[in-house]
C-alpha cells in the first residue's frame, strides 16, 4: 500500500474534471481521476493505496463522481488535515473513508503505509500517526456500508431527533 501525497485545497475539478460527469461507472471514472493535475495517478494507483493530503481536501463542486472515481481506482481511505464539507459527506455515503490527521506533513509521496481503522492509526516508515474519530452519527452510516445500505434498513426516519 503506497501513499499518493497531495497538498492543500485539492478540488473536485482536479479529482474528476467536468467533462467526465456524464460517466457514473466507477471503473470508467477512475480512468480520468486527476487527469489534468496528476496524470500518472490513474495508471499508477493500485488497490489499497491511500491518498494523503493537506487541508480542505475535496473542496468545490458537490459532484459525487469525485469519491466514486477514487473508489473505482481502488482507493478506500483518504487521510487529510481537513476535508471540505460536501466531499466529506459524499465520501462517507459512498463508502470511501475520510480520516482526519493533523500531521500529514511528515508523510511523503510513495511511502509504504498501513492503516488500521479499528485502532485509528496509520503507520508510515515506522512512525505512527493518530487518526481522529468520525462523528458518531456518521459512524452508523459507515458501519452500515454507506448511506444506501443504511437507508435500506431504515423503516422511517427519526425526524427531529437530536444528537451530538
Amino acid at each position, binding site marked *: 500500500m503506497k501513499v499518493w501525497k497531495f497538498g492543500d*485545497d485539492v*478540488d473536485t*475539478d*482536479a479529482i474528476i*474534471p*467536468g*467533462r*467526465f*460527469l*456524464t*460517466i*457514473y461507472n466507477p471503473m470508467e471514472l477512475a480512468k480520468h481521476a486527476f*487527469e*489534468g*493535475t496528476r496524470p500518472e495517478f490513474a495508471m499508477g494507483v493500485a488497490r489499497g493505496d491511500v491518498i494523503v493530503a493537506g*487541508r*480542505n481536501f475535496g*473542496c*468545490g*463542486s*458537490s*459532484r*459525487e*463522481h469525485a469519491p466514486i472515481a477514487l473508489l473505482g481506482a481502488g482507493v478506500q481511505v483518504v487521510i487529510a488535515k*481537513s476535508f*471540505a*464539507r*460536501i466531499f466529506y*459527506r*459524499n465520501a462517507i*455515503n*459512498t463508502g470511501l473513508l475520510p480520516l482526519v490527521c493533523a500531521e500529514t506533513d511528515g508523510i511523503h509521496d510513495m511511502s509504504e503505509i498501513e492503516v488500521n481503522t479499528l485502532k485509528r492509526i496509520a503507520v508510515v516508515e515506522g512512525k505512527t500517526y493518530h487518526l481522529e474519530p468520525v*462523528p458518531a*452519527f456518521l459512524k452508523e452510516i459507515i458501519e452500515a456500508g*454507506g*448511506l*444506501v445500505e443504511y*437507508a*435500506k434498513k*431504515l423503516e*422511517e*426516519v*427519526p*425526524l*427531529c*431527533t*437530536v*444528537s*451530538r
Partner: protein
Amino acid sequence: MGATIVEKIFSSRCGKAVAAGEVVMAPIDRAMIHDITGPLAIEKFKEMGGRKVFDRNRVVMLFDHQIPADSIEAAQNHVFMRKFAEEQGIFNRDLREGVCHQVVVEEGLAAPGEIVVGADSHTCMYGATGAFATGIGSTDMGFALKFGALYFRVPDSIRIEVEGTFPRRVSPKDLILAITGDIGADGATYQTLEFTGNTVQNMDMAGRMTCCNMAIEMGAKAGIVPPDTVTRSYLAGRGVMAPLEIASDPDATYAEFKDYNVSTLEPQVAVPHNVDNVVPVGEVAGTPIDQVFIGSCTNGRFEDLAAAAEVAGTETFDPKVRVIVIPASRKEYLKALKAGTIERFVNAGALVEAPCCGPCMGGAFGLLAPGEVSLSTSNRNFKGRQGSAEAKVYLCSPATAAASAIYGVITDPRGV
C-alpha cells in the same frame, strides 16, 4: 441565551430548540436536482428502495449544465430524468428556464425560514431569501428524495458586517471576492456566513445572491441574509406571501465577527488557481486574455449584464478576445433583451448564448486550450475548471470583465 437565524430555522422546522453543533434529522422544504447530479441521485433513491418521492411538489427538476445536450451521454441523462419526472409527476422545467439556482430564487421556491437542499454546491445562494440552503451530494439527495429529511449538523455562524457605499463600478462581486481572500478557501468550513450591515441592507437581491452564492468558496455550509423589506418585496412579486419574521437575537453566539467597509474597496480579481487568491485589479492589470465569460449563477442576472453593458458603452470588444455572454435565466434574458442590453453585447462582438451554466461547467462548450487565459464572472478558477488544466482562469466582476473585453487585457473598469 439567544439564537442565530440558522439555529432558529432548524428549531422552528424541528419543533424544538436546537443549537449549533447538534445533529438533527430535519425536514426538507425543497429539493433541487439538475442534469449532472440528478441521474445519480435518482439511481441512489431507487437503490434505497424509493418508490415515490416524499412530495412531488417539493422537488425542483431542471437541466442547465449540458444544454442543449452536448453529447449522446448527456442526452441519455436528460431522457432518464424526464422519464423519472413523468413517473413521479414532478414538474420538470427541462432546459427551458436557465441556471438552477437563479430559477429557484426567481420563482419563489426558497423562502425565509425554509430548509432547502440542492444537489449542487452553489445551492447556498438561496440564503439571499432568508432560507437555510445547502449543497449536498447525490446519495444524500437520494435519501432526501425518499424521506423528505436529512441529517444536518446545525452550523455555527460567522457574522459578517458590511458598512459603506460602493464606489463607482465596484460591486458585490468585488466585496465577496475580497471576503473570500480574507477568510480563505476553508476559513468557514461547516459554518454559515451571515451577511449584515448597512451595505447589505441597501443591496438589491441580485447582489445578495452573488454574496451568498460564493459562501461555498470559503467552505461554508450556507450563506444567509436575514430577510428584510428588500426580501419581502422581491418575494411578494413571486407569490411568496407573508414571509416569516426571522432574525438572529442580539445576544446570539457567533463563532466569529468580521467587519468590512466597501467605501474604499477596489475591483478585485481572483488569480489562478484558487478562489481565495484575491488581489486588487491593479496588480494584474495588463494581463492578456483570450476569453471573457459574463454569466453564471454568480453573475448572470440582469443587474450584472447591465453593469457590464454600462462599462462597454458603445465600444466594440477586442477582436482577439472571445466574449461569451450568458444570462442566468430565461426571465433575466428577457429583461436584458427588452432593455437593449443584449443588442449592445451583440453589436460589441459578443457571442450571446441561451441561459445555462456555459463555460463554468468545464465540459459543455467554451473550453480553453492549453496556455489560454479566461477572465470570468463565475465562481471558480480551479485548474482545469474551464477546459485544459494548462489554461488559466481569473475571476472578476461584470464591470471588470466588460472593461477587459474592450482592451484584451485585464483592465480596471474605473478608468474606462
